[in-house]
Structures are given as C-alpha cells and as structure tokens.
C-alpha cells in the first residue's frame, strides 16, 4: 500500500518515538562517593561535555532524575540510602554502575564494602575502569541510549520480560536469596 507522505511527515512506532525522546534527555542523579565522582564531574564539564548527549542536567533530587550514576564504592551503611534514592526516582529510570568499585567492590574486599551494587539494585550498564575516563563514561551513556532505543517501551512492558526480575547470578549461586530478603527495607517507594 503506497501512502503519499508530505516531506515533513515521518511514520514510526510510538514506542520508537518515546524511546528517542527519553534517550536524548537523560537527567542523571550523581551518586558520587569516591574518585569516580571526579571523573563524573569532568564528564559534565566543558571539555568532555555530556550535554552533547542530552544528559547534562545533573539533578541533586532523585525526584527529578531518571538516570542514576553510581560512581564509587558503596559501603553497607550506604546501601539503604542508595536503595531509597533509587525508589524515589520516578519511572522510567536507569542505572549506570561506574567503575570497578561500584560494579564489583574493586580492591575493597573488606567487611563493609558491598561487592557490586547489582547485588542489591538493578543495573543497566557497567563502566569498567579505576576510575574510568570521561570517554568511557560517555561510551556507557551511549550504550545506555542504544539500549533504551532498542528495548524501551512506552509503558515499560520490557520490565516484565522473563529474566529481568531475578536476583543477580552471584546471589543465586550463593543461595542466599530468601523471600524476606527480597523485600526492601524502606517499605514503599513513597518514603
């Protein structure tokens, strides 16, 4: 069926359009706890200029953010804070685990440091490095944009896909996930 479209009309799926808007207006929540935070600031500054990717609006209120960038090590005392901030962010939201410490605990294999935030909150993109250069973080943001464009749906149907709601592999292997451990400590996200 041939449709004769005027020059300034584009036909697309609504999901695609929504994804295109979302991926180009990510508002980061800087959860910067260590030296990765310095690189995160450099990424936002003029030389590397994350504004080129539409993600320059760093907000210090989780209510106004949709991209949490966890930059630096997270200790067990900080984990409830991190989860609370994550719950306070409105949907749709994404999470970048920046650097070796946030992703795996890094060199801090001690009693207090969480060995990877993905054990306790969902993570979309991991950025390796110690700390990663701004270029690496920018690549992580571009990868996230790609992921949003490919997987995103207007009403978040992709979040119910099989495999998206299971605990991380490491936890399942250790057999430590029980029913009560799955409940968040802070109650509902309205806190």
């Amino acid at each position, binding site marked *: 069926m041939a449709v004769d479209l005027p020059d300034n009309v584009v036909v697309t799926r609504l999901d695609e359009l929504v994804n295109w808007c979302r991926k180009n207006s990510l508002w980061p929540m800087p959860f910067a706890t260590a030296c990765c935070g310095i690189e995160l600031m450099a990424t936002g500054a003029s030389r590397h200029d994350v504004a080129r990717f539409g993600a320059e609006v760093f907000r210090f209120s989780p209510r106004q953010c949709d991209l949490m960038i966890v930059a630096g090590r997270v200790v067990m*005392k900080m*984990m409830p804070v991190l989860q609370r901030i994550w*719950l306070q962010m409105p949907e749709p939201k994404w999470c970048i685990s920046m650097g070796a410490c946030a992703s795996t605990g890094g060199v801090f294999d001690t*009693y207090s440091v969480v060995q990877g935030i993905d*054990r306790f909150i969902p993570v979309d993109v991991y950025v390796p490095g110690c700390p990663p250069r701004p270029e690496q973080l920018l690549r992580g943001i571009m990868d996230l944009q790609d992921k949003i464009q490919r997987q995103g749906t207007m009403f978040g149907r992709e979040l119910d896909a099989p495999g*998206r*709601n299971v605990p991380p592999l490491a*936890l399942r292997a250790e057999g430590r996930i029980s029913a009560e451990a799955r409940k968040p400590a802070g109650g509902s996200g309205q806190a």
Partner: protein
Amino acid sequence: MIRPEIIAAVCQQFPQATRSEFRGQVRLVVPPSVVHDVLQTLKQEHGFDLLVDVTCVDYLYYRGATDRFGLVYLLANTATNERITVRTFVNDPEPRVRSVVDLWEAANWLEREVWDMFGIRFEGHPDLRRILLPEGFEAFPLRKDYPLQGRGERHNLPVLTRRES
C-alpha cells in the same frame, strides 16, 4: 620534647607508671585503674589541654604480648607544644576503662570510635553508641580475630529488583 620534670612528677605521684622513650617521644604506661587520674593530673597540673587522639591496638597473636588491647591517649600542651603518649592495657573478657569525657569533650567521639571498632567499654561515657558502623552491626571489626571480609554483614541486605522499584 617534653620537660623531664613533668615526667618525674607524674612518676612520683603514680608509682605504678613506667616511662619509655622512642626518638624523643615520651610514653607513660599505666594500669587501667589509674589512667583517668594520670590524664587528669597531666591536664590540670601540667597543662596538657588538648586530647589529640584516643585509639587502640589489638595485640592478639602479637609475639611476646602479655595483654590484649593497648589503649593509647595522645596529649598535647598547646602553650609549650609538648606532647606525651599515655598507654594502658586492658583484657578480655569485657575490656573496660574509665571514660575521660569529663576531662576533654573531644573524647566523646574518639571513645565511641574505639568502642565501635574494638569493643572497649568506656565507663561513664554519656552516649556510648556505634559511630561509624550501622546500628545493627554486631562485631568489632578491628579486632584481630575478626575476618577481613567479615561474617556476611555486607551481603545480608535487602535486594531490589526492577519490578519492586
């Protein structure tokens, strides 16, 4: 450096005290029962008005050690720039010593940190709670018999999944 007459006066007043010196820094070792009195004397009669630090060493597994915990008080005299270290040793079970918060307010958080990390009880402390670790933490992690990677505290946290958040 510290004037020798100060050390002599303190040692005369407290015969239990022993002194030692390393690279010009003088150290007094006293039994825990009199550590408060020694510190009070140093503050009120010899002008050591600043409590620089209160910290602790666990001598478990340490070769030749006879006591388990070595408490360290670092004092300074801000008028003469003299410094002195006062040490005492306490032991299991229930290592305890009298708090010096009544002498220096600064001791409040310092003693809380020692309690947090080593489990030394400071009697008379107004608010002996954990200061760095979470409230529910049960171990004293700087003790030498505590494993470096903990006893699973860092793992036993609630998990958030996509659907729950």
